[in-house]
């Protein structure tokens, strides 16, 4: 695939992520913070988001396996995940976190378990999509082109 086709593919892919609600305006804000002095900012902050989210999802799984469920602790983890998802523009994950917190407040174990599965699912989708997008960007840069804004 030539450079122009790659660039077009990236723009289309990125647009689709917004249209399908995977990303929101906040992701655009992150891109605007990237410049020549900080050329890898978006990848860095998204990588941090992945690390942090995976840690939180593990904690949530463990917490929901306990004999006595600590809903306060679970809520605190979901609050963190909601916060970071919102900050990078991962809209679908953020919205599910809101639902998750409602189940925590209601101390509904079944609801929490179901929500956790949904959050894990949505998270893995957005992670895959962002990684694909970053890969396209790398291909463009390797081909000597610049990443279209």
């Amino acid at each position, binding site marked *: 695939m030539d450079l122009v086709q790659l660039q077009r593919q990236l723009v289309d892919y990125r647009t689709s992520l917004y249209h399908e609600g995977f990303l929101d305006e*906040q992701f655009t*804000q*992150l891109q*605007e*913070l990237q*410049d020549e002095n*900080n050329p890898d*900012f978006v990848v*860095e*902050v998204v990588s*941090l*988001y992945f690390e*942090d989210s995976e840690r939180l999802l593990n904690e949530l799984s463990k917490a929901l396996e306990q004999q006595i469920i600590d809903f306060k602790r679970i809520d*605190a983890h979901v*609050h*963190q995940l*909601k*916060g*970071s998802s*919102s*900050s*990078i523009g991962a809209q679908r994950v953020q919205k599910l976190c809101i639902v998750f917190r409602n189940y925590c407040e209601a101390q509904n174990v079944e609801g929490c378990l179901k929500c956790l599965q949904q959050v894990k699912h949505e998270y893995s989708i957005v992670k895959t999509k962002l990684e694909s997008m970053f890969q396209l960007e790398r291909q463009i840069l390797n081909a000597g082109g610049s990443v279209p804004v």
Partner: protein
Amino acid sequence: MAAQGRHGGKKSNKMTALVVDDNTVNRMIHHRLLDNLGIENVAVVNGKEAVDIHCSGKTFDLILMDMDMPVMNGIEATRQLREMGIRSMIAGVSTRSMEREIREFIEAGLDDYQEKPLTMSKLISIIHKING
């Protein structure tokens, strides 16, 4: 953005800020936002650390204060900082949407409140309030 007259022996005219947030992703983003505006900044992870850093003698032109944090939350930290006589601009940044909760945060001593996520334009509007 000179901070003249605020920092006696300080050589630099650069504005300074303290980020108070327990979320690693938010701290990274807030740091970048401030850096891009040429604002020297430091981050701590909860309200108690924010109070402690002031007890050690440091002051800042701007404090970006998250509300929900472990150990000491933003409301309590703001209250304590004001009781200590800290007159810096304190901008509360939170995802809370209930009016009552926001009001409590503001009444603790905030100069401004912005809903998260923080964007460049929200940060600029906070800074304009410092410079009057």
